[in-house]
């Protein structure tokens, strides 16, 4: 039997807060971080966004970096979250770690400020996705393996899946994986051009849902083999017990009505965890709040779980859709839910939709114990991923 892959550290920066404690507080109290934009320079003020409540300059001060307007916000958010994850797992002085980071926006926020002029010379290139990962890695000087995944909104979840493979194959013993994404004019306008942004706070799975709110943030999880964690006496927060990735093969951006890719990915995750749908105690849905995503995800869930599905919620009405970082942010939320005995609320839900599941909006019970939690992230390009995180016992 495989040495299990366990999680020993979490770092989180989202609209809900700048660290795990703040995120946990706002998540349990269902306080949304979606507000009118403050840091993103855009004329599209009608769209509320889930911004991290720190300016780039403030983040540079916290991180003891010279304030340089050429450091991408994506990198800064990533470093903040990664630092917390390393501290949490007690690995801030450990060399030879692996880093897998998902991003799509990367340094677009910087590049778009200069366009159409070329970037000034003598500045490190920050636009592309892997230079963003490497900039984050170089801040710590602990990583001898870096990899960057760019599969749109499933990027960060795919990072966790690759990390699990690397550990199971003995390529690395300790891998920090996740994703980071900052808001930029570029992708706000892109999502707007697709007509999937809502001018009101988003309402996942609700009959009146009419689009998503964009968000930003970063989350990294420290993954290692169970033996490595035990050997160094690390606290173990959970087990990454199952993973699945599959393709919709339907359309570049829209999901198929039947949610074929989502169904295949969730089914693979459950099978590889060696459990059955009945063993899943909570599903953290992709649940973006767009009419298409929520109905197709619901169709896939109903097909796999039947009418007797476990509690389901989307946290995107709290954080906004953090695109390439959403997978690891929501996986971190799942770990918080397991260890703090609660299910996050699906904020914004009021009217049932016959094409959708009914999400969790109730009160948490005293005796709640989550043993297996599913976390979904579906990306443009038909790239659908799902993982199972289990309680460590």
């Amino acid at each position, binding site marked *: 039997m495989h040495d299990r892959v366990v999680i020993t550290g979490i770092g989180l920066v989202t609209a809900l807060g700048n660290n795990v404690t703040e995120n946990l507080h706002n998540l349990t109290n269902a306080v949304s971080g979606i507000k009118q934009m403050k840091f993103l320079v855009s004329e599209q003020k009608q769209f509320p966004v889930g911004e991290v409540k720190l300016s780039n300059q403030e983040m540079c001060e916290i991180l003891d970096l010279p304030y340089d307007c050429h450091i991408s916000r994506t990198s800064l958010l990533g470093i903040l979250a990664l630092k917390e994850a390393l501290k949490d797992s007690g690995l801030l002085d450990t060399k030879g770690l692996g880093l897998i980071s998902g991003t*799509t926006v*990367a340094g*677009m926020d910087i*590049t*778009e400020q200069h*366009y*159409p002029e070329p970037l000034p010379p003598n500045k490190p290139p920050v*636009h*592309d*996705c*892997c*230079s963003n990962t*490497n900039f984050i890695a170089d801040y710590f000087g602990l990583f001898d393996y870096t*990899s*960057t*995944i*760019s*599969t*749109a909104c499933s990027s960060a979840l*795919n990072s966790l899946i*690759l990390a699990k*493979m*690397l550990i199971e*194959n003995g*390529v690395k013993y300790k891998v920090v994986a996740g994703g980071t994404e900052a808001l930029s*004019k*570029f*992708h706000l*306008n*892109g999502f*707007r*051009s*697709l*007509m999937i942004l809502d001018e009101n706070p988003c309402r996942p799975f609700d009959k009146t849902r009419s689009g998503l709110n964009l968000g930003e943030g970063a989350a990294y999880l420290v993954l290692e083999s169970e033996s490595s964690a035990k050997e160094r006496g690390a606290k173990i927060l959970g087990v990454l017990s199952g993973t699945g*990735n*599959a*393709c*919709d*093969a*339907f*359309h*570049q*951006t829209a999901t198929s009505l039947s949610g*074929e*890719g989502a169904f*295949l990915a969730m089914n*693979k995750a459950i099978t590889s965890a060696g459990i059955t749908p009945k063993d899943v105690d909570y599903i953290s849905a992709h649940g973006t709040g767009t009419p298409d995503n929520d109905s197709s995800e619901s169709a896939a869930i109903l097909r796999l779980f039947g009418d007797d599905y476990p509690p389901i919620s989307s946290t995107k009405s709290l954080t906004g859709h953090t695109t390439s970082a959403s997978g690891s942010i929501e996986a971190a939320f799942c770990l918080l839910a397991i260890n703090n005995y609660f299910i996050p609320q699906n904020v914004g839900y009021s009217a049932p939709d016959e094409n959708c599941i009914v999400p969790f909006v109730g009160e948490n019970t005293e005796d709640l114990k989550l043993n297996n939690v599913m976390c979904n992230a579906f*990306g*443009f*390009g*038909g*790239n659908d991923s799902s993982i199972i995180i289990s309680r460590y016992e």
Partner: protein
Amino acid sequence: MKERNFLIKHSVKIEPNKVSLDGIDVLLSERYNTFLSDIYHEKRLAYPKFFKMDILCKVGFLATEILLEAENIERFVPRRDRSIIFCNKSSSVSTDLKFTHDILDLDNFYPKPSLFVYTLPNIVTGEIAIRNKYFGETNLFVMNDRDDNVISELVEHALMDEEINSVVGGWIDAESENDYEADLCIFEIKQ
């Protein structure tokens, strides 16, 4: 070189003005348009969506058409046992720049959905999966420079999924309309 647990069934390369299959140049009978359109016409591909694609997808589409035709098995049959694993270095930068151009002129502001769709590097894996009805894993990894060892490892990892028997994978990059490269293979698991 480390022994791998896969065999290479076919390989295709596309560069500006050069296309080869299994190491043998594919010659085009006529040249009257861009090189990529000429390949499309030469191969008599009836897939008009090709003309809407961005440069990365065009190169990926044509390369996989040539590659999969060589496989000589029935095509377009839905299959879950094949995944797509690509690596590149330029992400979708060529289209990103075009899209940025469209949203920066305040007097002529119009973000085009048809262009935005292609501002993601993994759309190329989606286009190929849609065309060929592949439901397996699809992933695109961005790396600073091409590293064939890493590509081979990623292909091996994909083949560890018990459902997956073959991978369409390799290197595909498009820095601009005139500077592109595809070097793709069909990898099959060793029995």
